[in-house]
């Protein structure tokens, strides 16, 4: 077995062990809830402006491009359907995840890697404290807490932006067209799917960032390398999860 395959398998095994360690702490919220809420505030409130800006831009692009491509070929109300479908099932969760990966995931990986290389993680062990319950669980729980509301806000902003910009940029498009198109497409499951996807993405981002961060070695260069690894691994994981979750949309 090549060294790379062995290293990959080791990582999978260690990540599974970390997952199990997290699961064992979860039934005891007293150990992590206060810290998780503080992390959630930092992750959620501070990321909100950027998430909303990204969602606004995503919605604005969607309605304009749909208008440009479909005008003359399909009825204009299709813009409403495409806008709702794109934002709810893809843009809302994914753009939120990209912002959170860049802003939160990278920060978690860098922070934990820095703690690792400066022996702060060892210090926790030395004090008989468990880094999983002290550092990892609060971050993972915070990710799960903040992602669904962020995605809902991103969905709302993206659709509103697409609606408004569509009215300005697409000739002949009316609010009645948008509303008809959205109602024609909309199923409540789409909204649940959007939130579910956000939760899964949130879990993936914080979990991978924590796992990679705790593997940090070396000095400042090592911290930089770890952060890059976390961002690359998370990007890949998000796209893979996106593909894997697509059939779930059809299931209901």
């Amino acid at each position, binding site marked *: 077995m090549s060294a790379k395959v062995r290293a990959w398998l080791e990582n999978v095994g260690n990540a599974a062990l970390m997952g199990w360690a997290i699961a064992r702490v979860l039934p005891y919220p007293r150990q992590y809830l206060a810290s998780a809420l503080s992390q959630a505030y930092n992750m959620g409130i501070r990321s909100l402006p950027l998430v909303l800006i990204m969602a606004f831009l995503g919605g604005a692009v969607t309605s304009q491009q749909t208008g440009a491509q479909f005008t003359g070929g399909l009825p204009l109300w299709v813009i409403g359907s495409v806008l709702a479908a794109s934002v709810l099932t893809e843009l809302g969760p994914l753009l939120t995840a990209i912002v959170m990966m860049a802003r939160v995931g990278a920060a978690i990986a860098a922070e934990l890697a820095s703690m690792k290389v400066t022996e702060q993680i060892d*210090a926790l062990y030395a004090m008989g404290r468990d880094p999983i319950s002290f550092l990892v669980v609060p971050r993972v729980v915070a990710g799960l807490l903040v992602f669904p509301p962020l995605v809902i806000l991103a969905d709302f902003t993206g659709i509103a932006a697409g609606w408004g910009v569509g009215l300005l940029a697409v000739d002949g498009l009316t609010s009645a067209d948008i509303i008809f198109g959205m109602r024609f497409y909309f199923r409540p499951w789409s909204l649940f799917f959007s939130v579910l996807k956000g939760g899964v993405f949130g879990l993936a981002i914080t979990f991978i960032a924590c796992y990679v961060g705790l593997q940090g070695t070396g000095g400042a260069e090592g911290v930089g390398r770890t952060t890059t690894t976390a961002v690359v691994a998370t990007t890949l994981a998000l796209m893979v999860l996106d593909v894997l979750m697509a059939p779930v949309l059809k299931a209901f």
Partner: protein
Amino acid sequence: MIEFKNLKKAFGDNVVLDGVDLLVNEGETLALLGPSGTGKSVLLKHAIGLLEADEGDVVVDGISISSATVEELKGVRRRLGYVFQNAALFDSLTVAENLCLAQDDENLTRGVSGCHQEAVDLLRRVNMPADVLDKMPSELSGGMRKRVGVARAIASQPRYLLWDEPTTGLDPVNADNIDELILELGRELGVTSIVVTHDLDTAFEVGDRIALLYEGRIRALGTPQEMLANTDPIVMRFVRRSSIAAA
């Protein structure tokens, strides 16, 4: 009592510890000397289970570290205080929070305000004023960080203190202060200490016994006087520089 039994550890092809046998007696301060990079800190980390031995074992109060359960290891760690080389203070927490985190679970659940007095007492013990409690570690000097690191290590009232290069990077005055602190804590708390250092002055100042780790094994072990009288050329070369200080 801490006993290292035929401890072996390699990182890849680099054999760091090659069968270390060492017994640290109750109540003594053992200074572990050795050139930089010989595995002194690695040895220390085995005592607290931060590293896993390839072969051999460390036994603390009759508990084998290599086969200890999670709970046993946690118990051993609560009996050991570890003073890290660069203090390893949590840089996102204040001094008070650092000290509270090291206390027992009961104190921890009371939060920072609940363990304020304990934190003040700990700082007093390492000769630091209480006004640093609200400072972040980055606002402290190197010597102050070391002292807070010591205060944190003694917060759980350990029976053993493991000092990893306590005077490295300090100016002579601060290094003397830390030496004094090691002696003071030994006297007042009656703790057993292992002091890993390559600072000969510190080793001869604080050590009841001195061990020389060389090429992965204990090359020599004895009282400061015995080490000075040792005729092994490696030991002589190592301790000669300290003879004036010891005198």
